[in-house]
């Protein structure tokens, strides 16, 4: 398939996954924030903003509601509204790769956000608003599983989804390390709920809510679809099915990096992580995942001679606009 098309599909999925994660996170934290005094609100949101790298932009602005900022802030590149704008723009360039149903869903959520209707719903009935956004993302992912062939393009979409998901889960977990105090029960629950993991977690740990257990689950769960280990395994599988090289070997840098990350999450345990520092581990993982994204781009989108004269490629310019 066209390299650009692969790139568009990858980014489309990433932005949709990102929008969903941010929505879940705000939903959860907004309800937790009801438990804290109004004058300590900014303190409450601080770890969240830090984890998603939004605190600088937010702090430049005064007197804006945090929810409105994260959902509709036009100057915040990862606001949900912007995510949908980019997702649709990427999708518009590859409409022939999507089923009509997928396009209609994505276009509808985009139109909802463009019309001002979204903001009105958010203010009047936030619950309905959160549900609508999350439901869209789930329907879209369901449709991509059920209405288009699972061919090369689909693999690039999966790569986008899982790279973003691993990144987002790691950020949720990281909010715990940004707290000024020992994470409370409420903080731990908020993180689990942001990752839709509370029920699954309970089943495994029978109510033993501790920082170590939460981190263990979100990092290393073998079968929970939002754990970092699960996401990394999916990235590894999809990369190898693209190249046809068996897992455990590598034919390009993206495969080598993801393989080493997979080995790390397969063969380390939570005690080692906690003694090395949770934040440090998360940081290393995030950096590796960013590199994987970059290497996928260099392997499948750029031509070999463009790597040398990087500044000339229009692809690189487009790429840097996306991030």
């Amino acid at each position, binding site marked *: 398939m066209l*390299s*650009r098309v692969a790139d568009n599909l990858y980014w489309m999925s990433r932005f949709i996954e990102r929008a969903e994660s941010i929505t879940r996170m705000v939903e959860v934290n907004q309800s937790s924030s009801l438990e804290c005094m109004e004058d300590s609100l900014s303190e409450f949101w601080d770890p969240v903003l830090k984890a998603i790298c939004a605190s600088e932009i937010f702090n430049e602005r005064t007197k804006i509601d945090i929810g409105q900022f994260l959902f509709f802030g036009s100057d915040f590149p990862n606001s949900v509204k912007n995510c949908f704008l980019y997702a649709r723009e990427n999708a518009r*360039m590859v409409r022939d790769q999507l089923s009509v149903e997928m396009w209609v869903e994505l276009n509808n959520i985009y139109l909802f956000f463009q019309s001002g209707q979204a903001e009105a719903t958010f203010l009047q009935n936030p619950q309905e608003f959160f549900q609508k956004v999350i439901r869209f993302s789930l329907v879209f992912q369901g449709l991509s599983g059920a209405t288009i062939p699972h061919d090369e393009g689909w693999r690039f979409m999966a790569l986008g989804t899982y790279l973003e998901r691993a990144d987002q889960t790691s950020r949720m977990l990281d909010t715990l390390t940004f707290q000024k105090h020992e994470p409370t029960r409420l903080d731990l629950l908020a993180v689990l709920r942001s990752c839709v993991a509370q029920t699954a977690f309970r089943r495994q740990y029978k109510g033993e809510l501790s920082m170590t257990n939460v981190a263990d689950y979100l990092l290393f769960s073998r079968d929970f679809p939002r754990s970092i280990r699960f996401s990394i395994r999916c990235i590894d599988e999809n990369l190898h099915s693209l190249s046809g090289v068996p897992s455990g070997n590598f034919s390009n840098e993206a495969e080598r990096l993801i393989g080493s990350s997979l080995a790390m999450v397969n063969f380390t345990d939570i005690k080692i992580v906690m003694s090395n520092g949770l934040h440090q581990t998360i940081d290393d993982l995030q950096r590796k995942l960013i590199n994987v994204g970059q290497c996928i781009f260099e392997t*499948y989108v750029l031509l070999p001679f463009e790597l040398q004269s990087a500044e000339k490629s229009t692809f690189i310019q487009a790429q840097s606009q996306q991030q």
Partner: protein
Amino acid sequence: MNSGQFSNYQTNSFFDEMFYFDEKTRIKPHYEKVYKRLNGLSADELDAKRSQAVSSFLEHGVTFTVYDDSDGIERVFPFDLIPRVIPKAEWVVVEQGLKQRILALNLFLHDIYHQARILKEGIIPREIVETCPYYRNEIIGFDVPQDIYIHICGSDLIRNEEGTYMVLEDNGRCPSGVSYLLENRAIMKRAFPKTYQSMEVRSVEAYPELLLRTLEHLSPRQSQKPVCVLLSPGVYNSAYFEHTFLARQMGIEIVEGRDLIAIDNYVFMRTTLGLVQVDVIYRRLDDDYIDPLFFKNDSILGVPGLMEAYLKGNVSLANAVGTGLADDKVTYAFVPEMIKFYLGQDPILESVPTYLCWREKDRNYVLENLDKLVVKPANESGGYGMLIGTASTKQERNDFKSRIKQNPREYIAQPIISLSRHPTFCDEGVMGRHIDLRPFILYGEDIEIVPGGLTRVALKKDSLVVNSSQGGGSKDTWVLKN
């Protein structure tokens, strides 16, 4: 006799597509079923059908982009639910006329870029051709693949006060609108399934297949399945929806300049598995933008080296380079002469009488009679930069006078033709609105025209400009089998 939706309908003094104009207003027989069905609709039913159509366009992203419009870049092309119906007998003549015309235009382009007999024999002044901005020195003597220049042509037809079909202009570069034709049909079949079926309307669905066959016919590598691509300027182009629509329907890749690369006089597309050689490019970019090395240095839309590959015969372009000469409204004035010169026939379709400001006699007449004429720039499209004399102010006429004197070659004038009108749903009810017709002609192994075309309608009261960029809308066009 008019009641229901049509109760206030007036044909006034215009040629009306649906009604005869005489003492009493009578319905033309080929419209009877449409009339009956629509007239019986209640206002609520009608509203439901209209909003269904609009939301269907919006949901599917059937939108176009208007330049210089800061608020929201995409709009739905307004669509009118009353279909335009063309009886078989009328269509047969139009079809023959269009085929004759595309043949003559292609022979003309071949001649101009080879021996130029028509210039040598003084039938068309050499100066006219050589001063056309779309005339391409670069391809003189070059044999285009299959000797076809215009593979896809959109000629605009109007009907005058007597109902005579006339050609208003030819679009031999990158005519657009065919996706609306296909989408309009899909919507009408959903809105009025029984009426559609009972009238035995000719199908238009084959267009994408015919187009692909037209493209494949050009491939320099006939021994294998040709690799065709659609080259688009990208997502911000006003016709981007159409580009993706056609590519999807044909099952070919839609590419942008950056997806293609020319190496050693061959063109390749960049895929995840490496480079793939391209045989035919259906380009929706004007000549000027296809190759920055050849035409314009500042364009990033094209493919550096594409022209070299084209001139070596390693890749084919549809339409060929240099066809803009046939779009020039000055060239247009000579098409009847071309038909006689190359085909030895009389033109089947009439042209609109055209005054060339380049000719002194014509110019003087135009300058004296600006208030009665329509003045058009010879090489603009989209209905931009026109002066409609009857609707102009003195200031505007003076402005045009000095422009014409400064650059007479670039202006033509025509008598104002009152286009035929068609009943159209407006805010005030069903009203007569002026329409035209853009059929799409494909020239490959054979010449094929999908029945009908895109009927465009000027939605503003009394307006004669149907372009989408100027407040026009569209209708489905039903050509009848019998």
